[in-house]
């Protein structure tokens, strides 16, 4: 439908502008931009972006609660440790469709890959704000190697996986700019990139958990477990599945006109299917968490206030959403599955915040006062979330993500 406008003038700049304004004349495009959502977004950015500037002008101390005892604040607790598992969308969807052969989930692959790519991109953005000298971020890859470090592995894998995901998403970009021949090449590597994606995801999702293996005295024993890499990996699978449900729900609701019938008509059925996979993984994950307590014989700790919090996490934020998903799947009701998926996503965020912030340094005096983030840091996080949503929407509005471009139907991948 974009192309109707393009027919009039085929000069290159006009074509380019048409791509950006989705084929509308500039004045109409500008008028359409004034929406309540966008106004709120601009206000948040107006406050948040200068605060990011402040970090690079006056130092991290002026904007975060990070201290010598608490080196990692919510910038990483939220941006990296919660953001990365929720970005497991790309590898779970690509594996399901291209490796395991569940072709009927094809309409959701690109949305999954895009969600994953954007998640990693923004995880890196949070990281660039947090680390001391961001222009040295490539040092682990090129200047000085620390192969005994789990973070060395994370750095390599996140960098590589970001590239892999860009390549996985590239067909959508190439279709958008009508680069038919390059797209052929991009499609050829789909399977190889998918396999690379699973390997990299297995390793760095679990490595994010393994990072905390270096802090046995600092992380509360109920959360510290030799199995923590397995917990992180397994939960990233259902986090990815539930996130695809959540993102597709929101996108199908607010950007309906950007989706085709194949997408919208199959969405409820596919949602139930994803919910089925997610609830199986969640049962496994719940069992693993219990085995973790049994392995270290920490049952006695459950009757402390930390124990109640642990139980709240695994019962109310793992088992309960898992049951909701199961009910939704049994009744074949996408609505219930969606509720369960949002609940499960919240649970993954809670688990990651528990490990990286809430239960880290639990035994230091004044712990719970020390971890409350200052308003400036909250605004930085809010503004990055806003930017994330805006760019995500920008792409969904323009590129064939929730629809298939009819011109390329005979050459699907």
């Amino acid at each position, binding site marked *: 439908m974009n192309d109707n406008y393009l027919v009039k003038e085929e000069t290159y700049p006009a074509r380019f502008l048409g791509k950006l304004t989705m084929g509308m004349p500039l004045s109409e495009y500008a008028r359409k931009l004034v929406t309540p959502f966008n106004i709120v977004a601009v206000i948040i950015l107006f406050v948040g972006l200068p605060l990011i500037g402040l970090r690079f002008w006056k130092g991290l101390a002026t904007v975060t609660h990070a201290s010598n005892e608490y080196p990692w604040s919510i910038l990483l607790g939220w941006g990296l440790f919660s953001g990365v598992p929720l970005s497991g969308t790309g590898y779970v969807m690509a594996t399901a469709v291209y490796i395991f052969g569940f072709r009927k989930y094809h309409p959701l692959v690109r949305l999954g890959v895009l969600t994953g790519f954007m998640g990693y991109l923004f995880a890196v953005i949070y990281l660039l704000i947090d680390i001391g000298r961001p222009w040295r971020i490539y040092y682990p890859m090129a200047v000085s190697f620390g192969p005994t470090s789990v973070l060395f592995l994370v750095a390599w894998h996140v960098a590589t996986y970001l590239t892999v995901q860009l390549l996985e998403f590239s067909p959508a970009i190439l279709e958008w700019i009508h680069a038919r021949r390059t797209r052929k090449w991009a499609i050829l590597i789909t*399977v190889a990139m998918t396999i690379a994606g699973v390997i990299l995801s297995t*390793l760095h999702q679990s490595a994010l958990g393994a990072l905390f293996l270096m802090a046995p005295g600092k992380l509360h024993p109920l959360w510290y477990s030799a199995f923590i890499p397995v917990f992180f990996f397994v939960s990233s699978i259902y986090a990815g599945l539930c996130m695809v449900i959540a993102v597709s729900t929101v996108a199908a609701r607010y950007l309906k006109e950007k989706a085709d019938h194949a997408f919208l008509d199959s969405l409820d059925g596919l949602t139930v299917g994803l919910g089925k996979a997610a609830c199986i993984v969640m049962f496994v994950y719940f069992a693993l968490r219990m085995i973790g307590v049994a392995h270290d014989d920490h049952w006695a700790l459950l009757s402390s206030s930390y124990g109640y919090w642990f139980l709240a996490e695994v019962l109310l934020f793992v088992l309960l959403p898992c049951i909701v998903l199961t009910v939704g799947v049994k009744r074949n009701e996408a609505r219930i599955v969606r509720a369960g998926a949002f609940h499960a996503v919240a649970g993954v965020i809670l688990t990651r915040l528990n490990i990286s912030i809430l239960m880290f340094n639990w035994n230091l005096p004044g712990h719970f006062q020390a971890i409350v983030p200052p308003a400036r840091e909250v605004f930085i996080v809010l503004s990055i979330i806003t930017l994330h949503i805006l760019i995500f929407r920008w792409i969904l509005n323009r590129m064939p993500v929730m629809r298939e471009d009819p011109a390329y139907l005979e050459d699907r991948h």
Partner: protein
Amino acid sequence: MEKPVKGAGGGSERDRREDGRTTVNRRDFLRVVAVAGGAAFLGTPADAEALHDLSGWPDRMGMLTDLTECVGCRSCESACNAANRLPAPEVPFDEKSVFERKRRPTASAYTVVNRYENPKGQGNTIYRKVQCNHCEEPSCASACPVRAYTKTPEGPVLYNQDVCFGCRYCMVACPYYAPAYDYESALEPRIVKCTMCHGRIKAGGIPACAGSCPMGAITFGKREALLKIARNRIRKFPDRYVDRIYGEYEAGGTSWLYLSGVPFGELDFPTNLPRKPIVENTKGFLSAVPLVLTLWPALLGLCYTANRNKEEKG
């Protein structure tokens, strides 16, 4: 790397291509790679055997702080500040009011002394000097993704800010909360911590704090010798000391050792640390990495092959 290249094949196995460019044939190339690679990664066979059971540098130095001797005069803080050319303190070093709250090493102080009430109730307050403990197998060094830390043969653990990008994982990994970070610096933040006066040690001197202590509470010497001294003191004065040398085994042991008259936990020493070096906890995970890298492609390739011809369901 030079040596094996010269020795390999004596040049006779080089082929001359038709276009006149010299090439190295495959066997020759592989031999060079194998020898050079082997030499680079393994060193001599004796080294390779030793690597598996690291017992630390021989003759490494250490420090012994006898907390029963410390009177809280803060001479060590002052000497450290001068020796390392650190910024002048906000309150002078003879000011006792700093003891009203617990302090920790910061970006402008490598070491601080804290005061504790004596739980034995004898009226004598206890003072504890805090600084980097210079672990035998340092967690900070194992955690650092850019190898900014070195355990020197002399004992001190040193930090190199030239490769650091400020991830602060070393601070997460340090069980003693020793490294401090320059959060105030916008563009050149770095880790700050005690160096055990490595330069002075190399030059044959002793660390500034040990040299400045009027009570002789800080002893500098070879770690093995310090352990003997500490054991002797405990044996001679069993009423004065608890029967434990802190740092002998904690997280694989530290260069800095402590004697105390009261249980170490009451002076905020971490007492929940494993005996083995903390890096051991990640070895299982890291050794699984190459397995995943090699097994996953094969298994996933198999899945792909098994499913590629499956009929499309919908």
